[in-house]
């Protein structure tokens, strides 16, 4: 009797202390993730200018080499209850096509032929990618981030500045779609950041770091899970030449590199710790360099996403360029751009081509910079 009660007492105290230890570890980890000791120091790689301030969000971008155009999604802020127009526009990167100095920085908004699609008013585009087929057809694939209608939309570009809606893929498992990477005609990967779409439930999920994000694969007819149990997967980019898929993790502050097999299953190659939260991923097809649009200070980003209507609550912006060496055994990271949020807040997408860099943000401006001096160690 005495022995039993002593044993029960010991187990009871043991459990209490283990619980206290786990809570303490959780608190420490949460506090470190918030980046309380970080800030951003401003610098630019060359002259920069704002291309547009007219939309609450320029959150997704893709580059089409054959057209020398960058396609940009507009109006992501509506997914966070901001009043804004939504749509898709493009920017021409060719600077020797005879346009004037003023016209060179114009954005051209595209008209969308919805072909009878009934949910067109619930279109809030964010992640975007493209596929150019050998016959010259250019297809666009766009994530719809509407809280009630998360879908992948398929478009074809016709008559230079019009989009034909081809179809939409919607699925109950889509709760927080972020970005998209195309690996073939109508074959694509998408990131679903969290099990909860928005609000305090999502914040709690991030705080607990339960790892309920996923990468889905669509093979042209069927949707499947390509990778699961990820912690807040965000940006996704595909290196077609090397068949490597890069997936950013916002909470782990890292990039995962996967080998895409012939049957499109994913094999994890390595994890690259960035110590900054990647949101957008762009892969330079020529060099294989990875460009990251990041949120470097999480607690400021969280505050900014909670109050996107407040112009005085900024989130820092950061662009990284990663050059992979020795087949992924090592890499060199440079930071072409960083801003405390006063010029561009919460950078979420990036494209680099022809010594030009476009930076998109979640709720605000689109920035264009010249990289007159691309120094890399």
């Amino acid at each position, binding site marked *: 009797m005495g022995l039993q009660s002593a044993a029960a007492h010991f187990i009871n105290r043991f459990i209490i202390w283990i619980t206290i230890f786990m809570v303490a570890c959780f608190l420490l980890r949460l506090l470190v993730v918030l*980046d*309380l*000791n970080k800030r951003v*120091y*401003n610098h630019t790689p060359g002259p920069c200018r704002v291309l547009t301030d007219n939309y609450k969000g320029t959150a997704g971008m893709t580059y089409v080499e054959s057209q020398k155009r960058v396609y940009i999604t507009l109006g992501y802020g509506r997914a966070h209850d901001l009043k804004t127009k939504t749509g898709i526009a493009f920017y021409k990167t060719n600077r020797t096509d005879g346009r004037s100095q003023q016209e060179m920085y114009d954005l051209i908004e595209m008209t969308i032929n919805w072909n009878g699609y009934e949910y067109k008013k619930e279109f809030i585009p964010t992640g975007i990618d493209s596929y150019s087929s050998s016959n010259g057809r250019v297809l666009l694939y766009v994530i719809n981030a509407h809280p009630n209608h998360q879908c992948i939309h398929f478009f074809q570009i016709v008559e230079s500045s019009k989009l034909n809606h081809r179809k939409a893929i919607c699925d109950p498992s889509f709760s927080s779609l972020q970005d998209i990477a195309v690996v073939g005609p109508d074959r694509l990967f998408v990131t679903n950041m969290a099990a909860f779409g928005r609000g305090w439930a999502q914040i709690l999920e991030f705080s607990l770091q339960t790892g309920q994000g996923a990468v889905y694969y669509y093979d042209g007819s069927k949707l499947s899970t390509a990778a699961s149990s990820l912690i807040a997967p965000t940006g996704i980019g595909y290196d077609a030449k090397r068949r490597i898929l890069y997936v950013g993790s916002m909470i782990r502050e890292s990039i995962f590199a996967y080998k895409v097999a012939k049957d499109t299953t994913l094999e994890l190659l390595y994890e690259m710790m960035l110590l900054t939260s990647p949101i957008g991923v762009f892969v330079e097809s020529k060099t294989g360099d990875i460009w990251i649009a990041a949120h470097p200070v999480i607690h400021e980003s969280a505050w900014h996403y909670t109050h996107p209507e407040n112009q005085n609550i900024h989130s820092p912006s950061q662009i990284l360029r990663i050059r992979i060496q020795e087949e992924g055994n090592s890499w060199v*990271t*440079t*930071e072409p751009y960083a801003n405390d949020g006063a010029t561009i807040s919460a950078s979420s997408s990036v494209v680099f081509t022809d010594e030009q860099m476009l930076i998109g943000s979640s709720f605000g401006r689109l920035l264009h910079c010249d990289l*007159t001096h691309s120094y890399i*160690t």
Partner: protein
Amino acid sequence: MLVKVVLFGLLGVSIHFIFNTLLTLDINKRVYNHRPGECRKIEGPVHGSEDIEVIDKLQIAFISSGLVYLPNSASDVKWKGQIFLYDLTKRSYKAEPIPVLNLEDVDGFHPHGLSHWILNNRTVRLFVVVHSKTFKHSIVILDYNSAKRELNHVKTIRGEKFVRPNDIVATGENSFLVSNDGGAQTALGNVWEILSGFYKGGLVYYNGKKSQFLMENNIANGIILSRDQKTLFVSHINQETIGVYTWNQKDGEIQKISEIETLTGCDNFYVDTQDHLWAGCHPVVKDAAGHLGNVSDSTLYGPSQVLRVSFSKDLKTAEIVEVLADDGRFVSASTIAIPFDDGKQMIVGTVARPAIHCDINVSLNLY
């Protein structure tokens, strides 16, 4: 019951202490490389370029090299203390050591902070913070002979108030301000001082005859006066702030104006002709500490950062531009950065490695 309350209180204090230590060590930080233009290493100073002093009129820079800092023992110090001369008008990327004549203790000359004053007869007078191999401290005053390109010893000043001098700023022919960057005289004591937060450094004013404390129980690393000699900038490096004070030389007094939070450990300062404050900083404490704990190990390096701080008119707020950042493989543990050639070039000094010379090809005015 009371025991439980005490235990939970201790647990809370422990978590708070661990958390503050982790943040202080910057375990979640790293540096992302970028440069403002082409950069090259400067030949000559191999074991450090901790402070650099530019003489505008002569377009030359003095570089202190061979720093001794919290040594474990004198026998660990296998390098020589030197002062180098760099010609800013040539792109030679090579600095020449210049002789220092008539020193009292030649072997014990390990220069740290530098400052200068132009005498009435146009002689350049150099004020040098010096540590010996056994980490004894003094302030050495040298006059520069430009014809012979040598430094002549004028005076050595010692005092109990020079507790652990780091940087110096001349305020006259024989007067200066000195910063003490702590009180501990050993590496272990320094770690305890930093972790406990009971700082014993501060600021000392020597008026030519005697010394007085202007600031005590603080940490002061780099110090510099504005070009009009009215504002004093102090790097509180372990608190990761820049303190801004009025300087009243007649009364020998300072008054605090503001404290700018930088979230990086800024070391030495330079004020340019546009009144921007330039600083060499240590953005990741754990890597800098590892490097500085064993400066002879070439596999260890500390991240470098060059910031340009632009103050508001009332000196209460500041905008910061990052001119250079390096993970340490090219330039390790930067301490000082000085622009020249109308802001088109820059030299950056380090604690224990060569200095670098960079072009500045990007605009630093973002707003």
